[in-house]
């Protein structure tokens, strides 16, 4: 009886196909691993500096406009309050007081004014506020928003 053996050229081609397939699988697995890393910070996150426990306060909106030669910034924040207790599901009382200020930068990213004073901000649960800041001089081209917890 004649027994058909695979030719050596065909064997090499099959090995190459296996190698390509395994490389593709490895690449896909690496890509999926990359997907699990934290997402890149948004522009709002990059423009916000947080100090202390301010996780309950979300920066909802940020916008700016040049009005009469001075940059005017508006930041909308909302206090969602601390997360409810895991065991009982009860809402925790939110008595934290916050402070905020704007930092004004020129086109080169240099600070155009000495540090602003921290302004007190009292936000109860689910309360939002529109915080408006006006640049101290016409050199200001950009701003950063700083928020901290002081009590």
């Amino acid at each position, binding site marked *: 009886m004649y027994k058909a053996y695979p030719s050596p050229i065909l064997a090499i081609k099959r090995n190459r196909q296996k190698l390509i397939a395994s490389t593709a699988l490895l690449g896909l697995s690496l890509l999926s691993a990359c997907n699990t890393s934290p997402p890149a910070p948004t522009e709002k996150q990059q423009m916000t500096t947080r100090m202390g426990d301010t996780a309950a306060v979300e920066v909802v909106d940020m916008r700016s406009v040049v009005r009469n030669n001075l940059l*005017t910034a508006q930041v909308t924040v909302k206090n969602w309050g601390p997360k409810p207790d895991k065991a009982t599901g009860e809402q925790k009382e939110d008595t934290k007081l916050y402070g905020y200020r704007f930092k004004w930068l020129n086109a080169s990213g240099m600070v155009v004014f000495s540090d602003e*004073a921290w302004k007190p901000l009292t936000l109860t649960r689910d309360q939002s506020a529109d915080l408006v800041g006006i640049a101290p001089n016409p050199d200001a081209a950009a701003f950063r928003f700083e928020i901290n917890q002081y009590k």
Partner: protein
Amino acid sequence: MNKYQLSTVLLISLVLGACANKTAPQQSSQIYIPPPTVVKYGDSQSIETVTADFGSTDLQTVAETMTRSLLQSKVIQNSISAPTVTLAEVKNQTTEPINTRMMTEKIRTQLLKSGQVRFAISANEMQSQVDETKRQNQSGMYRNDGTAKPGRMEGAKYRITGTISTIVKQNRDMKDVFYNFNLNLVNNESGLLEWAEEKEIRKTVTR
């Protein structure tokens, strides 16, 4: 000296000795040892809530709000060159002693740092200006070409005036202080009130 007298003398000396031993620590305990103190620097811009009285945070917030609003006004921004202004001392219409000179100077410094306005000598500072001009021109100690000539002062186009007032309410458990700060810009020639801004601050103290 009999035994009785000897024992009496010994007893007295023992008592005195005991007293002497007791007075020594008393003398040392009278030396005042102050409690240990800790000195540290803090953030001058941080929020201060020691009492409900007018404090550094209120001063800084008021000065910032007022100057930024004034700088953004059309009167200042539509001027071809930086207008000359004077700033009168802020009037304290509260029952609380507030250093209004500090507040006035803070507002003036922030306005000057913006480069958007120029300050002319105010009425309070006029005497020192007159004295200096007289000293340069009448003492005979200066070269003629280097002296500040009288009659060349620049008059202010606008004057800034401000007041601070409060409403205080309190009961046994709570005290509420409401501050209202007002700043006005008046055109000296026309007498028109060109700009006004106010800042309100509420502070409460609970027991």
